[in-house]
């Protein structure tokens, strides 16, 4: 088991390395100096306390969406509905934050609860459809994303319109996850209390997966649905539960995004943090701790790419390109595994 974990780690690192090489090739191909580009990219994410705080703020929703995808994946479900869950979670939190006028600790707790419930509702639908009617969760997840997108698109301007047509009113200081001491500690960066929500979730999910009956059953369903059913595990119940928890995690991600990192909800944008969560989960080998590492790495790329774009001619989309390449290399990790096992090109054999 220990060897397995180390192997996942090596495969993850190799995927990152290959992704960075691919990014370097694209930079060189378009007439830029890759070393200079990467220098600015990483400097932009890590150079001082403020930028480091921004990186953590970028990583916060990614930890939660990554955890969401990873958790569902353990039960054999592909949660591609994360963007919709992020929107609805963020919308629920924003609505509570804009409507209630109560002391900050109480308000934040209620907003967290709203985000949790909103995301859970959006996650439970694909779960129920899969369990009861065997509807593929990828398609139903995508449909739920667009339903969330359009509901927000009409709801926000009608009831919570801000100074622009495309965004909601800004939430008050009391409703924001930003805390003065934390912002001050990181020299005025975007970092907020969301990072603690994310880390608490990482701990809770680790405990659920490793030390509870529920976690054992969820993993059993993921490993072999039929064997789990034969041994008396209620497969359908576990699928619904896994999707509900996954949805709740993404919903919290929405709260940290729209009422922590930002202070209003934008309409007409599918949050990229949703699909990036898939990348985070894969790179983190669907383990909670791995997810934190992967989210931090993607946080660097996301917060550093603007700086790189400002200092060089390299378009900032290179960051997303690198992330996409990393996922592709993670998906084709059989090649990397075989390379380390010394039997390249004999992928058909498999085996450990």
């Amino acid at each position, binding site marked *: 088991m220990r060897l397995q974990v180390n192997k996942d780690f090596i495969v993850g690192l190799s995927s990152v390395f290959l992704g960075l090489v691919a990014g370097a090739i*694209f930079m060189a191909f*378009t*007439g830029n100096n890759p070393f200079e580009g990467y220098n600015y990219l990483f400097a932009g994410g890590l150079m001082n306390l403020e930028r480091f705080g921004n990186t953590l703020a970028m990583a916060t929703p990614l930890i939660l969406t990554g955890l969401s995808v990873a958790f569902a994946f353990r039960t054999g479900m*592909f949660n*591609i509905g994360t963007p919709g869950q992020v929107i609805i979670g963020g919308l629920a939190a924003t609505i509570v934050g804009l409507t209630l006028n109560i002391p900050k600790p109480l308000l934040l707790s209620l907003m967290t609860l709203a985000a949790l419930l909103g995301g859970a509702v959006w996650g439970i*639908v694909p779960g129920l*459809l899969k369990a009861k*009617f*065997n*509807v*593929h969760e*990828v*398609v*139903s997840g*995508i*449909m*739920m*994303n*667009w*339903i969330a997108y*359009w*509901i927000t*698109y*009409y*709801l926000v301007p009608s009831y919570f319109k801000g100074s622009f047509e495309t965004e909601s009113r800004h939430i008050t200081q009391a409703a924001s996850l930003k805390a003065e001491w934390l912002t001050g500690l990181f020299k005025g960066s975007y970092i907020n209390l969301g990072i603690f929500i994310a880390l608490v979730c990482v701990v809770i999910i680790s405990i659920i997966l490793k030390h509870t009956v529920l976690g054992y059953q969820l993993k059993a369903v993921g490993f072999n649905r039929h064997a789990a059913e034969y041994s008396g595990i209620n497969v359908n119940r576990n699928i619904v539960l896994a999707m509900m928890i996954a949805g709740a995690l993404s919903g919290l991600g929405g709260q940290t995004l729209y009422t922590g990192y930002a202070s209003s909800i934008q309409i007409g944008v599918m949050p990229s943090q949703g*699909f990036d969560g*898939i*990348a985070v989960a*894969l790179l983190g080998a669907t383990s909670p701790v791995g997810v934190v590492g992967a989210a931090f790495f993607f946080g660097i790329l996301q917060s550093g790419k603007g700086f790189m774009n400002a200092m060089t001619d390299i*378009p900032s*989309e*290179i*960051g*997303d*390109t690198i*992330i*996409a*390449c990393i*996922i*592709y290399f*993670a*998906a*084709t*990790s*059989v*090649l990397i595994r075989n390379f380390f096992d010394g039997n390249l090109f004999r*992928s*058909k054999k*498999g085996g450990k």
Partner: protein
Amino acid sequence: MWSVIVNIFPYAVAFAMPLLITSLGGLFSERSGVVNIGLEGLMVVGGFASALFTVAFYPSLGTGAIWLSLIVAMAAGALFSLLHAFASINLNANQVISGTAINMMAGALTIFLARTITGSGNVQLRMGLPRFDVPGLVHIPVIGRLIFRQTYGTTWLIIGILALSAFVLYKTAFGLRLRACGEHPHAADAAGINVYRIRYIGVLISGAMSGLGGATILVTYSGEFSGSVAGMGFLALAALIFGQWKPLGVLGATFFFGFAATLANSSQAEPALKAIPEVVLKVFPYVVTLLALVFFSKSTQAPRASGEPYEKGKR
């Protein structure tokens, strides 16, 4: 109500065509046993290739450049789909993950290249394809005004490909082999069919057709490449399931989506639709898809081996 239908029909058809051809591409891939959720990304690649080619050659070739750009888009889509084919056929990778990687890569890489080449993430066409009334046929009572009025050339091209695909799938040896690989690859292998080759062809066809789908959006109603097709590829995937993996079913499903989406988009212009809240119309296609998927779940006709890597030694 009739006049509303007559008014929006050409728009509904124009909207349905890219969906139809992409869905049809997905059909070839899934029928050969490879799930391709990268359709969305492949459409983006096709649109990108077509936009670049048209912008470069329109001054010298005119409308001919637009038609040639469709072929370029198909080639680009097919080339990009090789990534998915390699991962899912040779490496037994998780096909859903590989498809997701295709989607993300296409969106980011095309904008990256567009910015590098043209200096902007958006590529605009000076001219799209012209609309025309089909001579003679447009005067047929009832259906003439619906089907043959204000059509694009690409519509007839895509309908032609649909007919050809149905013929190839059900009346040729290749079609039989393709379907066999998606149902029972081991039996197909035992009968002397090269499963890997057939699956490669299936994925490549899906790449080419999705590329054409993305290019069709560009040269007909959008006229601008912006690095995204706003979920059309996933809608095509839903249409594939809705249409039960059959060419005619897919035709019906995509027409339904075309109608639903056009109704929502034209609700402001049509007084008859103003009474319905816009959000209901926008959400309608997606909710109905969910309901349809539930309804069809009992009698699903999914290719049995779709999504499963083929391993020779495994029984």
